[in-house]
Structures are given as structure tokens and as C-alpha cells.
């Protein structure tokens, strides 16, 4: 499925668009950056409650297409600029990690 589909999901705010035409293949959930670093699949949508600058660095290095911040977590302007430079989409939602991941999965990864 295209990233575009995820950018349009309800209950989400788009903080950085990334590359909407990019193909995304998996959804991945993890808050420990060290684990995410080694386990997040390329071209995945990563649902987490970690919204710091290191999250963007990990996403960029692991080739993650989209970061989804759950539980109302936000991201500071600097980090968002960095994400935008790297072409990584960032979304924010009030939903819990599981519910959000399930929504993404049902949107086209089933």
C-alpha cells in the first residue's frame, strides 16, 4: 500500500508528509530505540510513544517510511524539520499503540 493511505487515516494529525507515493509494507511497534534500530523493517510504519530527535535518527538509519506517535505524544519543531529533510512522514494520534497499529494494518496490510 502507499503511504498516502496512512496519511489519510482518521484520528491522525499529519506533522510531516514524507513521500506520500512511497510503498509501505509492514507495521512495527517498539519504544526501545536500540531494538527498533536493529528490528524495524525497511519501508515500515513505526508506531511508538518515543518522540525525540533520536527517534528520527533511528527511523532514517533503518529506512522507516513513517513514524506514528501514539498516546498524544508530539515532536518538537527541530525534530520535525529533520524528519522532513529525510523524507520521513510523522503522524500523531491520541490512540494507544495497539489500536493505531491495528488501524494501519486494516487499512491495507491484511
Amino acid at each position, binding site marked *: 500500500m502507499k503511504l498516502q493511505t496512512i496519511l489519510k487515516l482518521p484520528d491522525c494529525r499529519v506533522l510531516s508528509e514524507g513521500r506520500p507515493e512511497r510503498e509501505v509494507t509492514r507495521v512495527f511497534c517498539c519504544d526501545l530505540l*536500540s531494538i527498533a*534500530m*536493529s528490528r524495524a523493517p525497511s519501508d515500515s510504519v513505526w508506531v511508538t510513544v518515543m518522540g*525525540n530527535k533520536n527517534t528520527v535518527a533511528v527511523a532514517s538509519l533503518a529506512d522507516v517510511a513513517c513514524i506514528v506517535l501514539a498516546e498524544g505524544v508530539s515532536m518538537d519543531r*527541530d525534530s520535525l524539520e529533520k524528519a522532513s529533510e529525510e523524507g520521513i512522514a510523522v503522524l500523531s494520534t491520541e490512540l494507544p499503540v495497539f489500536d493505531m497499529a491495528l488501524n494501519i494494518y486494516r487499512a491495507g496490510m491484511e
Partner: protein
Amino acid sequence: MGDQLIFTYDIDGSDFTRAGEASSSVKNKLKMLGVNSEIIRRVAIAMYEGEINMVIHADGGQITVTVSDDDIVMVLADRGPGIPDIGKAMQEGYSTARPEVRSLGFGAGMGLPNMKRYTDQMEIDTVVGKGTTITMKVAF
């Protein structure tokens, strides 16, 4: 032997939010050189883990990356506290990171094990009280 490309980075140990910039830069350069994406991913992960370690434990240091025809070699040198027990440090889950580092999502004790997993060869040269030099190689 063909041409070698050498990239050198000074790692600032005082700013945790900037950790990863050197790894990002190497990743982008390798992309421009047309290196296979799986190789880039392995180099980026291994180098980032090492870079984070240098910031967490050693107040920064220097990283040299050499790209040649056969492989990519990363040398990470610091003047930090050294590693007293390499066996323990290589165990997944063992960490001596400070609580504030853990609260940022690091310090899971995955750094050195990840570096070993994602490279073809890793050597640790460490002296307690003097510093650590880690050499990692990823073959093409």
C-alpha cells in the same frame, strides 16, 4: 588495489540529540556511491550503535570510515573509561547506561551485540582508564 575513500568525523560527546549525524552522513554518501541498500543498512546500524556508545560512555571521539573495493571499514576511537569486562558488555541486555539515557529509549544493552551482528568482523581494543577503539568491517 583501487581507490579508497576516507571519511572522518569528530563526535561531540556533549549533545545527545546530535548523536547519529555522522552515521546519517555516511549513509547518504554510500547511497550516492550506489552501494547495495542492505550493506548500507548494516553499516548504518553498526556505526550508529557505536556512535551512540561514544556519546553515552566516552564523551565523544573520532570515527574514520574507509570505503575500498572489497569492504567498508569503520574505526571508532575514544578516550573514554574503557570496557572492564568485554564478555559482559557483549551480552544482550547488559548495560551500564545512565537512567536519563534509558529514558530516551537507549541503554537496552543491544549496542555491542548489534554491532557484531551487523558486521562481518569486529575487533575491540580497550584499556580501562585510557579508551576504546573498535574496528568493524562489512565486506561487499
